[in-house]
């Protein structure tokens, strides 16, 4: 019974606050904060809705609701329909696939670009440094020409830094999209959008490979086959 008593006591508290929440009460106590006054307004509005609801209930026999309750009901229905439509649209873009497959794959591809351009740049510079190493062994005119050429090559190599920074920005943007998708899934409920795997209706595995299926571009890291593996594969047909 103690619990019940407590519940009653708790319920009584907001009632008292609501009662004190009018303009008069606010005037009577100028020390009350702006937030307190806003809460009072909300409580007053809630009381008004409750009052309307009670009225509507009493008129249920005539099957007519009060205009204010009807309006609220319509708004809530529209809101529910809007949320359902939004959910359907989100489900259609398959957020789990975007988050787990497309975004990581795009980030990996971009990282691979940075790595490949860095490797290429370093190889170019290795060669330049080799040329510079023998520059002293040739006559002045040739030496000057070679120095100019290597300088131009070094200058051109700065593209790698710029490319890396630009790609870094894109990776950051992708991360941002991923975070937003996460937030969206959490807001609407992650389970709702999980891909439904229906074994009975699963699409049968394709047995033929089209030309389009073969166009995937360069493979990444361990997915890529080495020349030796390709050679072995070709040899297996012999």
């Amino acid at each position, binding site marked *: 019974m103690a619990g019940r008593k407590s519940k009653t006591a708790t319920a009584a508290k907001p009632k008292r606050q609501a009662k004190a929440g009018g303009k008069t009460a606010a005037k009577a106590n100028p020390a009350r904060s702006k937030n307190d006054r806003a809460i009072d307004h909300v409580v007053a509005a809630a009381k008004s809705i409750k009052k309307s609801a009670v009225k509507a209930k009493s008129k249920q026999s005539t099957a007519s609701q009060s205009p204010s309750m009807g309006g609220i009901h319509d708004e809530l229905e529209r809101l529910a329909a809007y949320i359902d439509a939004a959910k359907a649209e989100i489900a259609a873009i398959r957020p789990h696939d975007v988050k787990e497959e497309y975004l990581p794959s795009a980030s990996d591809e971009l990282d691979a670009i940075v790595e490949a351009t860095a490797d290429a740049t370093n190889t170019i510079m290795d060669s330049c440094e080799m040329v510079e190493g023998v520059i002293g062994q040739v006559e002045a005119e040739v030496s000057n020409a070679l120095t100019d050429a290597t300088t131009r090559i*070094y200058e051109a190599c700065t593209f790698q830094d710029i490319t890396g920074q630009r790609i870094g920005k894109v990776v950051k943007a992708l991360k941002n999209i991923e975070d937003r998708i996460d937030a969206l899934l959490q807001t609407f409920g992650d389970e709702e959008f999980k891909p439904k795997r229906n074994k009975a209706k699963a699409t049968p595995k394709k047995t033929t490979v089209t030309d389009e299926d073969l166009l995937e571009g360069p493979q990444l890291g361990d997915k890529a086959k080495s020349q030796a593996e390709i050679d072995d594969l070709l040899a297996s047909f012999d």
Partner: protein
Amino acid sequence: MAVDMNMNVLIVDDYKTMLRIIRNLLRQLGFENVDEATDGTQALEKLKESGGDFGLVISDWNMEPMTGIELLRHVRADDKLKHIPFIMVTAESKSENVIAAKEAGVSNYIVKPFNADTLKSKMVSVLGDF
């Protein structure tokens, strides 16, 4: 006063490739004593350890954990280091960046990508003819 071609130059960039490019360009300009750091914190340590025995700092802006502008502010706030000329070499080309760098005490500012002539001309404007 003639530029001391044997002075120590500290280059700071988080891209190893860029460090290598600048080092090679400096070598072509006649500066062989080049040290490297990959961010502001490491650069500041090197500068402090040397007791300010560097004739020039060439630094990128966008690095972690300490950026180029933070490094610059530390350098300018340190009595033993504040005399060292500081050139910012960065892809950050907004006016706000240049103004912030100037206010922090940058000696000159180079926007990436840059060429050897630009690097030399900015060094000349800071150090004098060489």
